[in-house]
């Protein structure tokens, strides 16, 4: 297996009639998935797109997403999976950088992305997965119509392991889009380690509600398809009852999630999770530290569950892995030992390799580490200055070589695994008519939530009252939901440095005090 397309092709050969992917609308076998993706790949190439061209996918978690992503890979295109809720503005910024020639989306995505202005001119063809038109934009066409014109049979453009497979978009150091360049070899190196560590078998069946536009969720789809397992997917915990019922009806053995998601399930739906998830063999938790008390709570609820945690970034997927169940409570705050293909070091303040026990920046290199960022030499040079990925995370290795993450060098806020730069939030909040100045921070444990939530402090213009509901509505109309502050507080002043930069630590203390004091008054 040398490319990601091989996952599907070899899966169809070995496991053809077995169930591969399911969603609330249906299910497909390996053979059906490969045939559908193959036909779509032909349709993509019939547009004139050439190997190495980019093709964006804006679809919710679904069979259609998996088929579209693999169609890109089979066609030899570089797949650019985007968050299903991406706003027109964010997509325009991404498209200006990645220059995709093709966009695969659905009616809802098309409506949202084309609401204010035509979709990026670089895109030559837009396939709508679930619609028949007519559409005013001549670039838009029905995927079903294109597929009808293509013959059955496998199609695969041969690519080399070192060729780019995907651009995975994340938030950059200044809040702009950052396309992480992953080769087939990068992803496969990580997948082989995960399959081995998690001990995937053809009997595994996972409920994956993590966004498939991110490495975490997509990685679990890959792992199951490599192993002959099956995946049920839908969008997050929005329809939480349906997800919990799927654990039982899909006979799930695996359920990856975030600390925030597990926190909510434990607090609100614990008994149902215990009964519906009785067949769960393992869960993998990532995106933020799983608090030890949550691990203990989950382990008590599901005693046979193997709770695993890994450390990884989009740029270096699954660098370290640990089974908290096998390692025991002493290691509940650890993120594990580096996987066999990973070199991981701690760099001390002098820039040299720090000894065991000393805290410094985590740096990583190896075959799973990305090449850099698409069309962004400055950010690539900053993150990969010496052949190592400088993660921006602080931590230490203990005497046994186990990694413990203790902090972060960068300003990014981690909302349930989504990295949000406060500048993105401030840019929008600052345009609210009553706001004179604003600063955003991430706060842990807000309102009983597990993990960080965004809080925006606002300085009001004279004569204006504080309208938290109005601010939230305003942001909901202009930002992806995960970027919308959970709370707003009115303050007299945003603490800033001499150069005007928001002093985030001071601001975090200020808003924490304000929130503890109770609701703001007009």
């Amino acid at each position, binding site marked *: 297996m040398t490319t990601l397309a091989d996952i599907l092709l070899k899966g169809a050969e070995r496991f053809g009639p077995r169930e591969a992917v399911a969603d609330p609308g249906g299910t497909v076998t390996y053979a059906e998935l490969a045939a559908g993706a193959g036909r779509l790949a032909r349709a993509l190439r019939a547009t004139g797109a050439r190997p190495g061209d980019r093709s964006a996918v804006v679809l919710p978690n679904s069979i259609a997403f998996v088929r579209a992503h693999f169609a890109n890979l089979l066609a030899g295109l570089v797949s650019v999976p985007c968050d299903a809720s991406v706003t027109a503005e964010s997509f325009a910024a991404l498209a200006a950088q990645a220059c995709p020639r093709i966009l695969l989306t659905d009616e809802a995505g098309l409506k949202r992305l084309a609401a204010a202005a035509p979709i990026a001119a670089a895109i030559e063809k837009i396939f709508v997965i679930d619609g028949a038109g007519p559409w005013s934009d001549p670039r838009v066409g029905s995927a079903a119509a294109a597929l009808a014109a293509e013959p059955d049979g496998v199609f695969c453009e041969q690519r080399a392991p070192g060729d780019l497979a995907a651009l995975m978009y994340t938030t950059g150091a200044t809040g702009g889009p950052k396309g992480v360049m992953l080769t087939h070899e990068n992803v496969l190196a990580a997948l082989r380690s995960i399959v081995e560590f998690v001990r995937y078998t053809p009997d595994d069946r996972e409920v994956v509600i993590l966004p498939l536009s991110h490495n975490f969720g997509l990685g679990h789809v890959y792992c199951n398809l490599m192993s002959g397992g099956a995946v049920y997917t839908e969008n997050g915990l929005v329809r939480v009852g349906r997800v919990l019922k799927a654990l039982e009806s899909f006979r799930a053995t695996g359920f990856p999630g975030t600390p925030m998601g597990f926190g909510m399930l434990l607090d609100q739906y614990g008994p149902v999770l215990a009964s519906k998830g009785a067949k769960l063999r393992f869960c993998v938790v990532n995106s933020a530290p799983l608090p030890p008390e949550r691990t203990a709570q989950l382990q008590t609820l599901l005693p046979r569950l193997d709770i695993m945690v890994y450390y990884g970034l989009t740029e270096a997927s699954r660098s370290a892995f640990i089974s908290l169940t096998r390692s025991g409570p002493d290691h509940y705050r650890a993120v594990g030992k580096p996987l066999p293909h990973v070199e991981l070091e701690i760099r001390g303040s002098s820039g040299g390799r720090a000894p065991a026990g000393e805290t410094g920046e985590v740096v990583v290199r190896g075959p799973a580490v990305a090449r850099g960022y698409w069309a962004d030499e400055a950010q690539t040079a900053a993150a990969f200055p010496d052949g190592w990925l400088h993660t921006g995370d602080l931590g230490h290795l203990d005497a046994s070589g186990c990694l413990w993450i203790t902090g972060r060098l960068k300003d990014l806020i981690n909302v349930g695994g989504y990295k949000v730069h406060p500048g993105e939030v401030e840019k929008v909040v600052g345009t609210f008519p009553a706001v004179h100045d604003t600063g955003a921070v991430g706060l842990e444990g807000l309102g009983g939530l597990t993990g960080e939530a965004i809080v925006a402090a606002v300085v009001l213009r004279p004569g204006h009252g504080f309208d938290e509901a109005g601010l939230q509505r305003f942001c909901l109309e202009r930002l992806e*939901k995960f970027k919308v502050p959970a709370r707003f507080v009115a303050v007299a002043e945003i603490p800033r440095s001499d150069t005007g930069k928001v002093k985030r630590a001071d601001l975090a203390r200020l808003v924490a005090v304000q929130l503890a004091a109770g609701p703001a008054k007009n």
Partner: protein
Amino acid sequence: MSDVDQKLKCIVLETLKIKEADYHEDLTAGDLPAWDSLGHVNLLMAVEREFDVAFEVTDAIDIESVSDLQEMVKKYLALKPGA
């Protein structure tokens, strides 16, 4: 619209911070950005507070839409002593 339905409407508008024009009985979790997993939990808690009921978790997982909420609230109110 019954009193219960009217009260529910107010709670949905207030909790999810949505406009009245976006409200209808078929509105379902996930239809609007504000009705995400956290919005759903907040909505159920607000409804429980307002009507002084506590949904069994096995019932709560069946609530996905405004009409489900209406039905469930009426079922719980009917079970209250003196109803």
